[in-house]
């Protein structure tokens, strides 16, 4: 799996959100950090074509994320900041099955896939529950399950431990560390990314550092001070 940015940048209504940059992402665990409004989320959304670059191009395994968005989004799963808005059907197993609908799988294959993914995250007991009754940690795991059921090769997580209590935070951290898939994690939770393979730091729309976690975190502390 190779994600490639080629002089890719994005601006909205004349305001630069991400300045053009060139880089390749191949590591298994990549963290993205930076202050609020630094361009982290826009950068992440450019990977799967939810934000199309206004200049340059972004490719995932050679597929252009702007013109071939559908293929790219099948390879790149995205877990949004607010899992509340990601789960769109009222009952959890219905929602998870929804992502598989376009595959035209037989009913029992869908059911098996849904059961499997729920078991993988240890939330099979939530299968028939109403989504609006789930707790924050349960919702985060449910969102993860709803995305991973379609077997993407990479997942992007936008602040997965945001607004979670200490126990749920530990649970989500453990889950993220245990993922078989390549993971790109946007986070303010520096503990989460401390032993990642690579960390990118964004500052005012620019890539300010790109290195091993300890160096990048140190630089982040300087910038934030």
């Amino acid at each position, binding site marked *: 799996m190779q994600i490639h940015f080629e002089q890719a940048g994005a601006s*909205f209504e004349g305001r630069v959100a991400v300045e053009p940059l060139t880089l390749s992402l191949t590591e298994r665990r990549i963290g993205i950090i930076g202050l609020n409004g630094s361009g982290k989320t826009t950068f992440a*959304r450019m990977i*799967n*074509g*939810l*934000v*199309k670059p206004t200049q340059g191009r972004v490719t995932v395994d050679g597929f252009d994320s702007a013109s071939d*968005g*559908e293929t790219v*989004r*099948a390879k790149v*799963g*995205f877990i*949004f*900041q*607010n899992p*509340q*808005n*990601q*789960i*769109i*059907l*009222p009952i959890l197993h*219905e*929602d998870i099955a*929804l*992502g598989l*609908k*376009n595959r035209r799988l037989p009913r029992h294959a869908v059911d098996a896939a849904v059961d499997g993914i729920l078991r993988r995250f240890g939330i099979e007991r939530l299968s028939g529950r*109403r*989504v*609006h009754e789930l707790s924050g940690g349960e919702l985060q795991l449910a969102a993860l399950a*709803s*995305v991973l059921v*379609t077997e993407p090769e990479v997942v992007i997580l936008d602040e997965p431990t945001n607004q979670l209590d200490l126990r749920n935070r530990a649970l989500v951290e453990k889950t993220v560390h245990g993922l078989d898939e390549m993971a790109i994690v946007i986070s303010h939770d520096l503990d989460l990314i401390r032993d990642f393979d690579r960390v990118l730091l964004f500052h005012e729309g620019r890539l300010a550092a790109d290195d091993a976690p300890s160096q990048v975190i140190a630089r982040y502390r300087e910038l934030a001070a």
Partner: protein
Amino acid sequence: MNTLYVTGNSLLHRLSARAKLIALAATGIALIVLASPLLLGISTLAALALYASVGIGWRQSWLRLRPVFVTIFVVAIFALLVNSPEEAAVTLLRLTTLVLLAAAVTATTGIGEFVDEITLAARPLERLGLVRASDIGLAVGLVIRFVPEVLGRYQAIRDAHEARGLKARPLTLAVPLIILTLKNADDIAAAIDARGIRGHKPARRSKER
């Protein structure tokens, strides 16, 4: 949200949604043509028997049918005052029959069955490029999913009024409710597109941003 479906195994439960809907439409047309109080009275009794066969129970039936019957009685009394007693009786019997039959269909057909039937019915329109049939089920699911959250938001806004000593007015409740709810549309739409749920032709969102 609870639905008006009632579990059971009556004749109506076993009939397909399509058969029931076609029969209901046909009976509706027949009843509008029919103007004899005697025949209408017989059909009302038949409808009552059919409704009773579903097994909804007295209390539940009373709760469900009362609001509709109130409007029927008001209209019948109005018809009695301005038209003839015979016309009033025709109105009363005709509406009662229709409402009983429709309520029986509703009580014996699950939401999923309806959605499947409507999706199927929308396929020809899909070929004309008017709708995407699968969007219908998605939209129904979205509303059921988000009603509890909109309600929670409404309660939070009302509490905020109270905490600040403000009187809750329709305007000051509706405006924040609409803005706070619709602001989530971008996120939800992004999630639907990211998960590839609507299938082909990803929406042209970025152009609109």
